[in-house]
């Protein structure tokens, strides 16, 4: 016997709310790193979850929810903002959580890292944030970005290479892998 519409709706709502509780912070932070603006990021997250609610039935497996939401978010960003607005050059200072637990040195370190991450080209920052915030594997990132795995690995490699250069410009640790074929990249 099938459930009543009211019961279906209640279950859908519970499932959606569990999804929000589990993932809204990661989705917001990823949105922020996509657009580097807190107001736009919140709008994007609202649109993303609104779409997620409307098509929740198409999510077969809750374990895939994060990748599903991140993909929706990327599409919403492309649909709503990317074509109308160039990427912001710099991030907002006020978006860094100013926890009392952080020492001034730690806060400065975060600020510098924020700037360095924010200055990465989008092609590099995007897979790096998917790996760092989303915890996705190279293969999963490749699926989300619709790229091949080697391209993703090359971009991750270069993203970290650029961050290392920003923080250790004269260090012997600096790597010089400037070739285009680092991971046999194919666009």
């Amino acid at each position, binding site marked *: 016997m099938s459930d009543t*519409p*009211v019961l279906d*709706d209640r279950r*859908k*709502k519970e499932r*959606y*709310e569990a999804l*929000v*509780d589990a993932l*809204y*912070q990661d989705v*917001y*932070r990823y949105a922020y*790193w996509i657009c580097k603006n*807190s107001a736009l990021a919140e709008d994007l*997250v*609202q649109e993303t*979850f*609104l779409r997620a*609610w*409307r098509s929740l039935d198409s999510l077969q497996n809750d374990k895939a929810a994060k990748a599903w939401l991140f993909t929706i978010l990327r599409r919403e960003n492309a649909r709503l903002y990317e074509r*109308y*607005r*160039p990427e*912001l*050059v*710099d991030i*907002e*200072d*006020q*978006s*860094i*959580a*100013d*926890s009392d637990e952080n020492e001034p040195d730690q806060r400065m*370190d*975060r*600020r510098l*890292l*924020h700037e360095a*991450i924010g200055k990465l080209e989008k092609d590099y920052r995007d897979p*790096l*944030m998917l790996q*760092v*915030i989303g915890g996705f594997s*190279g293969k999963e990132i490749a699926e989300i970005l619709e790229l091949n795995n080697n391209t993703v*690995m*090359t971009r*991750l*490699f*270069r993203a*970290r*290479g650029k*961050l*290392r250069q920003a923080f250790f410009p004269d260090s012997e*640790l600096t*790597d010089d*892998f400037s070739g285009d074929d*680092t*991971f046999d990249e194919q666009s």
Partner: protein
Amino acid sequence: MDDFEFRKRGLANPNDSSDDFRSAAAADPQRAQWLQDLQALDARVHAAALSIEVPAGLAERLKAHASEQSAPAATGASVSALPMRSRYQRYYAMAASLVITLGVIMSSGLWTPRPSAADIKFHDDIIGHMYRETPRIENATADLSMEEINQVIEAAGGHLRDDERIKSAHIKFANDCNVVPSIKGAHIVLEGTKGSVSVIMIHNSPVSTEFDVNDPRFQGKIIPFGQGNLVILGEKEESLESYETLITETFEWVI
């Protein structure tokens, strides 16, 4: 696994747990140290990426979507199952409310127009220009004459009136700028109390509204001025009001 392979895999994923990668790290103390340093940097990147403050109450607002969308279901009908007429009536009611609300806000003087997408692009171009020019500006030490300054400004279609306040200001840099590729602008730099104060004049379409610059280093304003724009930028600590007054009272377009 050679060093190149090891390092490229490390940079792509410092936490690669595959056996061959871990063995390669364990077999060579230099590699192990390199990887350890990389993992330390990665931990800092991770902490920084996750330190973005999530707006308070966001989860509740997102859940409210579901409540709003599912409300009709409480009566046994889904949103899509509502009769079309009823849905349109709701949209008309919402649109009417919106028009009334906007009318009240605008007539009460609370309306602050937001910069358009084109304005924001102009803003981003200005900021990009500032960062490119900063090394030259920081090294500038000249004390330019009014003639030298006006030569640059006049090439951009403007003029600074002969004014004692301008004459007594230390203007150390004046150059044309190409923020808008097809329109020659002027960029002059005054010595402020906390660093350099830049004034950029461009005879392009005025922005739709005056708005503040959003940048971690610089503060300032983009001001629609006659048939063009004035941009005033300084370090965060600088008080820019007096410079704004000085420029808006002495500058004019002559084309």
